């Protein structure tokens, strides 16, 4: 699409559509942290919170039986066969 527009533009030198100045909205959602009520305290024990436990750093396993790996294997094997077939 972009490529096509560019081609058309080159061919006919169409005038650019008037672009509006981008307005920066000062009040857009800026991930402002919600206020904690003044004086609010809570039990901030570190153990047992699911938000801190639901992470993994040993996901990088050697398993190649998932769908993606099986497809990849098929892809690589079919290609090798073609190459081998060509070279013989």
């Amino acid at each position, binding site marked *: 699409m972009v490529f096509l527009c560019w081609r058309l533009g080159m061919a006919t030198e169409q005038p650019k559509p008037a672009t509006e100045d981008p307005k920066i909205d000062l*009040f857009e959602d800026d*991930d*402002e*942290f919600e*206020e904690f009520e003044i004086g609010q305290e809570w039990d901030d024990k570190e153990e047992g919170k699911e938000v801190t436990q639901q992470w993994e*750093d040993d996901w*990088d396993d050697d398993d190649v039986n998932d769908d993606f*790996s099986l497809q990849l294997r098929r892809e690589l094997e079919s290609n090798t066969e073609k190459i081998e077939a060509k070279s013989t």
Partner: protein
Amino acid sequence: MAAYMSMGEAHRRITEYLNRFYDAVSSQDGKSLSRLFSISSDSSLQFLADALNTFQDANRIIRQSESSQYADIIVPVFRALQSYRLRNLVESYLAFEKVANAFVQEFRNWESAWALEALCVIAYEIRILAERADKELASIGKSPEKLKGAGSFLMKVFGVLAGKGPKRVGALYVTCQLFKIYFKLGTVHLCRSVIRSIETARIFDFEEFPARDKVTYMYYTGRLEVYNENFPAADHKLSYALTHCSPLKEANIRMILKYLIPVRLSIGILPWNSLLDKFNLTEYNNVVLALKRGDLRLLRHALEEHEDRFLRSGVYLVLEKLELQVYQRLIKKIYLIQKQKDPNKAHQIKLDVIVKALKWLEMDMDVDEVECIVSILIYKNLMKGYFAHKSKVVVLSKQDPFPRLNGKPVTS
């Protein structure tokens, strides 16, 4: 607009406020005093505003009351309240600025920190009133500048608190209000001097501050570390915020995760899907899956699909750099597949094979380009091995050919 109220009733309400003010100051009751300044958030003050709009000469009552010595604070409080009720938000802000200055004057003279809670409410209110005043200014085509003004005022307050003594525990609250202003105005570089005072000054022991302020502080400074691409520091700060945030504030936990997830992805730590689902951060589902699979096509699509969201929160560039980890994973999969077929030859990977895998993932690259990618992986210690140039093969190290990041960033 204002509900009907008799003069007698109006007089009674005004006198009641003045008595509450006097009592709070003379008994040094910071909590009661703080409520008298909650213009935008305490609805009971709206009745007082109606009373003031009915009873035009409130100043006379102030002069005759025991609170007359605090007229410098109370007269503008009344004006701010009246204007706020009539939705003259710029007027309201200007009056409240006078309140804030007069209050800080008194606060300096009080030796103990009893009025800290009231000062915190004033710091909060001045920010909120400034934001609303700026909206009003912008809507009539004038330049919004009150929030900037509130920032300068709060810097002054920070100076008052950041000395020795018991008042310093309020410094972090004011800092957090300043962060909210600077992030909103896009002037985050101004955070730096405040951060320096908090982190280098010996008078502050960070753990002494209230939990709510520590969590807010770590959220904002963590975001700054994301912008600076200092991922270990960002991980430390955002993790602190996550661990210590009130479990009741789910919206805040979600905001912390929104920044912590890309940071952890970049150091090789993945969130569980259940975490993404619970906090409705499903825009990360496919990014995580792409990393696990080594699926470059999926990574590209996931980034395209949520481009707006990722750009707006400023994490797009962090996510884009995950590409190298996905290449690493893909080549590792090729290696593992070869290993199943022929363990003896598995550590030799033909660049052609990588080209083919990439083609399958709709990435058109020739052997030279793939060689370039693989050199980058080797240089950044995501792969160990060397090239056999003539045969266009990369020979992998037999020991730990694909080192894990283990919580450390990719070498730059």
